[in-house]
């Protein structure tokens, strides 16, 4: 490998997209969220479920943390390697999760305030 090629490789490395700097496509992210199994454990709204997976809607993770969790899950989550979920797709899903609408506030939902009556 000559100097020119090394320099090109280095340039390419530093030019790698940073967190979500692909033109992230939330609509494509939704498609993959629904088709690639994310919803199965985290729910269609990313709300999470006690037994299967935490809330991921409006995720507080950085993209790097999100990608690391996909590739090397800290828990019992099934791993998503590059072969089945390219970085670009992961970025789109991340964008979709970030863009999920803010849920209503519990204080505005009177049905959630159950009171004993019998």
């Amino acid at each position, binding site marked *: 490998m000559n100097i020119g090629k090394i320099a090109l490789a280095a340039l390419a490395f530093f030019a790698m997209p940073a967190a979500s700097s692909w033109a992230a496509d939330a609509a494509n992210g939704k498609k993959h969220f629904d088709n690639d*199994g994310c919803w199965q454990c985290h729910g269609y709204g990313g709300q999470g479920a006690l037994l299967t997976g935490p809330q991921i809607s409006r995720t507080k993770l950085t993209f790097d943390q999100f990608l690391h969790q996909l590739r090397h899950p800290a828990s019992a989550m*099934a791993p998503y390697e590059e072969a089945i979920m390219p970085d670009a797709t992961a970025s789109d899903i991340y964008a979709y999760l970030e863009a999920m609408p803010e849920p209503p*506030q*519990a204080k505005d*939902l009177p*049905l*959630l305030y*159950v009171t004993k009556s019998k």
Partner: protein
Amino acid sequence: MSGKPNLDRRGFLKGAAVAGGAGVAGEARAQATAPAVPKAAPPSAAQLASENDHPGEAEKLTEEKSGSDFMVDVCKTLNIDYMAACPGSTFRGLQESFINYGANKQPEWLTCMHEEVSVGMAHGYAKVAGKPMAAMVHGTVGTQHAAMAIYNAWCDRVPIILFTASAGPIEDRRPGVEWMHTVQDGAATVRDFTKWDDYPWSLQGFAESTVRAYQLATSQPQAPVLITADGKLQEMELSKAANAKLSIPKLNHPTQAAADPNALREAAKMLVAAENPVIFADRYARSQKGMDDLVRLAEALQAPVVDQQNRMNMPTTHYLCQSARGGALLAQSDCVLSLEPQDIYGQLNKMTDQLERKTGLKIRQTTKVINIGTHDLMVRANYQDFQRYSPADLSITADPEASMPWLIEAVLKEIGDRKPAFDARGQKMLQTYKGFAARARADAALTWNSTPISGARLFAELWEAVKNEDWAFTTPNNYSGNWQHRLWPMEKHYQYIGSSGGSGVGYEPVAALGASLAHKDAGGRLPISIIGDGNFNMAPHVMWTAAHHRIPMLAIIQNNRAYHQEVMHIQRMANRHNRNVQSAVIGTTMTDPNVNYAKLAESYGAVGIGPITDPNDLGAALKKGVAAVKAGQPVLIDAVMQPRG
């Protein structure tokens, strides 16, 4: 059409009448209306033999009383309210005796459309009624059908009085089906997961074995028992003289096994000395008293309780009910008291479902473990429901509910100057508890408007519909997000009956049916079941049995159109193999076409509502359903929901 046979309707009927006229009356009718030579084929040799094989004049054809009548007498002494069965000819003598000789009362015969329903409804019934009911299953094939439901009850330590039957000795078996439905050892199919069985060879033996079986089934640890009623014994004539020689033993009601007092004193010392004790309650409480005693123990120690929700153990309204943070409590604990654990290893250890299955302790190495339970009294070798072996610092083999008053007394004697420390601990628990409701509401709000409907929305709307009723859940909360335990005030033992025991799919609808019957008998509580669609499809005809026997029940189908647990398993395998993750729906989902559960329920004579897809339509559907249940009807509401939570 040139080849069309000349089927004159009148002539055809005449011929058919002769050909089918095996009975005397039929033959007489045919001769009166068809004097001409019949056009139908002449009777076969077998038919002729059948027609000519009349019993002789002297042959006795009827009897006044049979062995099966005495078997009914035996069952009546046990105060069994119901006998559930899908009909089967091996017990025809018994069935006729129960409904005629026994006047179809105590037990009342319940018609089920599958043996799994007969047994499963007895499972749910016992957990609410606090006493067993009976189920009768056809010889051989009926036992095979019933096996999974029996296994669930075995794993759940629930008593059921099971009967099966056999055609008797070879010289009394008709050729064909009676042989195929006869087995040398009818209980062998299910012996690995019943507590006791017998094939009595005499009516006296039937009496003693049935009474013994009842006693064994209801002693801790409780479990199903099976009696085989021999076909010849059922149908043999019972003369007055023979009947007079028979006796039915009185049922013993033995006390349950309480713990060794010295062991309880040692347990009390360990619990009082601990800085961070935690109480895990698994299949602990069988009664309201059991719940009340657990509250007394927790208050004496000001120790948190983690209810594992396999029974209703701890009121959700009590500040020491800290189930929501069981993991954190375990990690901090220095002493764990485990009450009637089914899997103490699983309580204290974790294992990841990755390619390499790594294990780890949930507690510190130094944490003391006390276990009080009956697990070791009923362990078999083949089926592995006994779970992995786990050491304890103090293992007490006893019934924890029977032992609880003595444990409380021992703890109170040990407290001494520890009370201020306990009070401080209690204050911390109270502050933590106050945050649970706010957290649950915030989590519930996340998917308030989502479609499919979320579990949180369902339970919030459901509370609004039933809050003024005497309600009770008849199914577990495995897949609906645990919302009733997080949001609802649950304080009575009958309000929740826990899980299936063996995780055999199909438990939910059948247990809900039996539990609903027990709630009806208890004065008309409103029984609520949340049934997964995969579970429901194992026995949708429970709705017919409910309609036929006037059993009100509210069955809400948590319809995710899948065997969702399996969707996740297949997905996990695809991820592990770096293959198409989108194919996990093949073989695991129930779409194309979607099942219309409301119409299915209607076809069985129940009220069907739905499918409900818009969360904003749910409230009205639930109110309508509750009104119909209160009017005495079984109701199914099909709610299209999130797969989990």
